């Protein structure tokens, strides 16, 4: 008799349906809030790491191009039609072809670089530089994306006289028979809505004169 009364005492009767529902609702609410918070944080972190990767790529590209331009070489080739010797360095505002003593693959010898900026981004073609003009071999190559989403702008420093220097928008090595003494490269995001400052770099070219060919300074 006593045992029966004890088992039916209000203390050990278990939970009511209402209590269970309330507890489960609270638990679901808390879990939901927690997972929403974690989701937001993880999403945010992924965006952040993508941004960091992009910046890293951009900086590496700029520094690699700077290194290649500093080591630009006054490569000369013979034009088979005119049988004259020309220095190879062709550039305008959005593209630049030159020969450099460095290459991304660290291959020995000289490497021809062609940089082209289009609506997709900055593209690169690389080829070993032999005795002929690298233009021929550039045409056979598919450009590979170097930095998608960015536009490159080039300017070339001309030395008219030791006291007079000028930034030009294009450079014709075949006519000027020399390299510019410096190249100014600007990387701007193609997406105008991005609040991102352009990245400038100036690369001085030490070997801007060919050993034998006299530079031709263009008239104003």
């Amino acid at each position: 008799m006593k045992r029966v009364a004890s088992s039916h005492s209000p203390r050990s009767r278990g939970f009511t349906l209402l209590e269970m529902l309330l507890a489960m609702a609270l638990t679901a609410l808390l879990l939901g809030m927690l997972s929403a918070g974690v989701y937001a944080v993880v999403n945010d972190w992924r965006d952040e790491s993508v941004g960091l990767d992009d910046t890293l790529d951009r900086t590496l590209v700029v520094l690699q191009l700077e290194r290649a331009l500093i080591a630009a070489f006054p490569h000369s080739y013979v034009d088979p039609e005119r049988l004259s010797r020309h220095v190879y360095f062709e550039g305008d505002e959005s593209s630049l072809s030159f020969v450099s003593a460095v290459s991304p693959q660290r291959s020995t010898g000289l490497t021809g670089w062609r940089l082209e900026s289009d609506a997709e981004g900055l593209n690169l073609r690389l080829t070993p530089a032999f005795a002929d003009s690298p233009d021929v071999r550039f045409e056979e190559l598919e450009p590979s994306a170097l930095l998608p989403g960015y536009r490159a702008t080039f300017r070339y420093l001309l030395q008219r006289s030791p006291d007079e220097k000028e930034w030009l928008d294009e450079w014709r090595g075949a006519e000027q028979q020399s390299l510019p003494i410096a190249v100014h490269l600007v990387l701007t995001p193609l997406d105008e809505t991005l609040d991102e400052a352009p990245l400038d770099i100036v690369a001085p070219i030490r070997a801007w004169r060919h050993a034998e060919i006299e530079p031709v300074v263009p008239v104003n």
Partner: protein
Amino acid sequence: MRSNERNRGFTLIEVLVALTITGMALGGLFAVIGGSKRLAWRAEDALIRTAQVRGLINQAQLDDTQGELPPAFELDGLDLEAGIEFDDPADRTMQGTTQKLRGYVLRNASGDVVTSGSYWVELDLPE
């Protein structure tokens, strides 16, 4: 009496302590994630700053080597000044010295030193 004490549930204090501990653990977790996010921002800034400084120094070096040149670009709030004075290299009899070191200091808008160092300048310019 004893069985009554066993089954009486949690007191307010116990619940509060448990909640506080949970909150602290979660807070610590979020603080760590937030901290690494700040670290990512700082790393991004440092990377861009490295490339910018490189461009500025190249420009200054070119200016010193080739004579005055029209500046290609300027950076807001960054100012490149002359740094440590190095002695002129001693004259050598066998082979003339062709380069000397020039010091620089880079300051930001509030005058704090961002970085400092030195670069080589050609002494005898080609004709």
